[in-house]
């Protein structure tokens, strides 16, 4: 549905990925994890067609619902106006959004549960509210492929939970291909079916979430020891935490 095949990309001598084939089929949600600066956003840009590949090809529908990390931050427009932009691809060069497009935008706002944001000005919204609007705009494109670039990175814990809940809810009907980048393995555990790990050094490994989110792989990915914890008791859900290095350890 959306992905790349046999794709390679280098920046000078730096290998971002080589002979990478990944595909996010309809009904699946894929998380891309990797350390800072490893190329997670670059891989998304390749899938969207904004970053040319050295080799290989991308496959994606003509329009992909894209949720940027910092979107439309300058726009002094209402939430509804920003969501309505989702229909731009259908309008053509000289088209103006009509009642149908506004209706589609309102439906998208209902879907993400953000009707109350329709008339608020986008530039005055909080980070969490903006994220809802941008996700609604991606839905309003009508595309069944959804790409989210670090949807939780600038949000507080409450908004992170709400955004993750929304991503899970969006694919409950299993009729979309969703791919997102994140820094937190727990976010992948919460909503993803598959995981792509962009390892330090240029290797990329991928597989089902249960096989990829392991203490060993995560320790290799982030360079710190990682452990499972069970916040809900011995039979509850599992979460992964890094081994925190205290001040004392740094000074020793």
């Amino acid at each position: 549905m959306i992905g790349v095949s046999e794709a390679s990309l280098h920046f000078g001598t730096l290998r971002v990925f080589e002979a990478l084939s990944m595909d996010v089929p309809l009904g699946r949600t894929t998380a891309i994890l990797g350390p800072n600066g490893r190329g997670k956003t670059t891989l998304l840009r390749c899938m969207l067609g904004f970053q040319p590949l050295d080799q290989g090809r991308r496959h994606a529908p003509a329009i992909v619902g894209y949720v940027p990390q910092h979107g439309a931050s300058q726009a002094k427009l209402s939430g509804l106006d920003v969501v309505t932009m989702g229909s731009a691809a259908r309008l053509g060069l000289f088209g103006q959004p009509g009642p149908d497009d506004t209706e589609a935008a309102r439906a998208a706002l209902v879907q993400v549960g953000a009707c109350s944001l329709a008339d608020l000005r986008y530039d005055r919204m909080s980070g969490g509210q903006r994220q809802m609007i941008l996700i609604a705009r991606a839905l309003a494109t009508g595309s069944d492929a959804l790409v989210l670039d670090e949807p939780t990175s600038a949000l507080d814990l409450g908004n992170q939970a709400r955004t993750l809940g929304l991503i899970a809810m969006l694919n409950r009907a299993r009729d979309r291909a969703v791919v997102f980048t994140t820094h937190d393995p727990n976010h992948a555990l919460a909503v993803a079916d598959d995981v792509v790990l962009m390892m330090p050094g240029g290797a990329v490994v991928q597989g089902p979430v249960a096989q990829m989110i392991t203490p060993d792989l995560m320790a290799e990915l982030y360079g710190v020891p990682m452990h499972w914890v069970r916040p809900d008791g011995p039979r509850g859900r599992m979460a992964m935490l890094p081994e925190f290095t205290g001040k004392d350890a740094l000074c020793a």
Partner: protein
Amino acid sequence: MSIAVDQAPRRARLALRFGAFPVMTAGLVLAMLYSISAGRFEVPMARIVEILWARVWDFSGSPETMDERIVELVRLPRVLLAALSGAALAVGGAALQGVFRNPLVSPQVLGISQGGAFGGAMAILLGFHGVVLLGMSFVFGLAALVLVGLLARINGRTEILTVILAGMVVGAFFAALVSVLQFLADPNSSLPAIVYWLMGSFSTATWARLGLALPGMVLGLGIVWLLRYRLNLLALEETEARSLGVNPDRERWFIFIAATMMTGTSVAVAGVIGWIGLVVPHAARLIVGEDHRRLIPASALLGAAYLVLIDTLARTLTASEIPLSVLTALIGAPVFAVLLRQHFKRAWQS
């Protein structure tokens, strides 16, 4: 809670925004009527309406009385040309500001005006007028813009800051070339013609000149009007706009060419009139907000009314005409400073 609190001022704003267009249109009509009536030979407004009404019903007749001749042959074409130029310059500024996501951009900042001025001055020096002058203004305005585009494109990317710096460089270069032309020009004939033309004036407005300006300006205004929603999308980050199906490079060039057409034409028929493209969109933004679907028509109406009033002042304040660019700068610079301060104060508060 905060949403409920926000509703009341929003309603007031909406009323203002939708009521603003009839008020601005009425303001423009009044400004035009006042401008036609004012002058050394004063024509009462009722008489102007009467003359124009009679002309609507009898289009073939020719003006007979003194006031008919003044209204129809002297002041009406001048006022229409001023209104059209004002609308074109303001819309050009608003469109360029949208594309560059920067409220300080205008045809002057990008060097288009200076390029157009060089083309026009060259035409005057070579003894050309009319279509050739207009054509050379447009061609050199566009040349300046292309030069800015090439200079600002570094490693395949065009950053806003480099565009503005390149605009300053290209503008200064063409301004220097205009000085060279003035140095070469005959001090008894072409030099005063160039200097006076550069200072900007509608004193030579005729129906023929209006006809000359009409195609370029109407085409430019039409293109920007059709792309008004696209301008909202072009204000987004490049990647974001692309993901929504926008082709920013192509659509920017449509806007550039439209803005150059309007600026070049306006420079050709009335010289370099600065500040309109900077001040008017700001004022329009304060009234109708940032949505280009409202901002473009509001800029057109305000720009037209503003330049009509400036032109009226220019020809009625003193015995001889004051150059337009002097007045637009004298009024524009302080107004712009106040607008800018308000803008940033508000930005800090919100």
